[in-house]
């Protein structure tokens, strides 16, 4: 972003600096006298989640951790197949919705 008008940019800078100072000058609020009691009541109504057993591994974390590797493998596989001259008919049938016979024939050639 190229500043086009120095006077205008100066105004913006000035306003931004004042707003930044206004944000930083906000006094830290303090808890009211009954806040702690209310919190501990809310806490007593809740239950802490249990720590996962040692050695267990959540499935969702496994999926996300392997997502990048799986995508890479899929891309490499597609690239390899596209590079094969025998797969041209197969790709054409998939892309252009050729009759099933062409697809079967291509698969049998592979």
């Amino acid at each position, binding site marked *: 972003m190229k500043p086009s008008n120095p006077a205008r940019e100066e105004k913006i800078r000035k306003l931004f600096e004042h707003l930044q100072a206004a944000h930083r000058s906000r006094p830290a*609020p303090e808890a009211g006298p009954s806040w702690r009691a209310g919190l501990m009541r809310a806490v007593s109504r809740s239950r802490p989640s249990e720590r996962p057993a040692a050695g267990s591994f959540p499935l969702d974390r496994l999926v996300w951790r392997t997502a990048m590797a799986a995508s890479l493998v899929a891309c490499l596989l597609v690239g390899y197949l596209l590079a094969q001259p025998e797969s041209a008919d197969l790709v054409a049938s998939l892309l252009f919705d050729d009759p099933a016979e062409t697809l079967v024939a291509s698969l049998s050639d592979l």
Partner: protein
Amino acid sequence: MAVRLGFGYASRTPASVSFLGGSRGGREDVAGSMAQALTDAEIVRLVVEGKTDAFETLVTRHQAQVFKIVGRHVPRAQVEEVAQDVFVRAFTSLATFSERAPFHHWLASLAVRTCYGFWREAYRSRETPMSALSEEGQKWVEHVLTVQADRSFHQQAAAQEAQTVLHWALDQLSPENRTVLTLVYLEGLSVREAAALLGWSQVNVKVRAHRARLRLRTLLLGLAEERGTP
């Protein structure tokens, strides 16, 4: 990674409030006084193992810092409620605390994410359209732009009208952009620190920060053109 936001203190801060409160049994009081000497991580282990009363020691130690973070993100009237949400969420998800980072970093991240959730909810349920800047706010802008010296800089910043303009400007942003702008440009955190607090990628934070700054720039430009003297 050093995450700021006022958390630079030792985790063995002595608690000033009685651990279990005055009405509990003597045996628990002994356990309570013991908990005060424990580190945050040790107390977390106690709570997860079922000694839930030990959680109050964590509240005592970190209450001021949570209020400080929440107070800079949400309106004053909602600070207590959001701070309570932060601690309840901390309590219910203590088992996910991995001890790889200090407890106060984990809690700071939870506080920032809770504030972000507050704004997402607030924007979702907002029925009235965004209001125009009040007359007082517009006068403040005019005054800031006409005052030459920085002598009254702090008085200007501390003025109630400054807060009005700040809230108005932040209200024009999406919850994501608002949160990122607050962390990166108003608090002065690095992109890496903001990303760690929000649990977002650094690229996402960078893009959001850029968009938010452009939007804020447009807003300020509008104010300056409208109210500023040539």
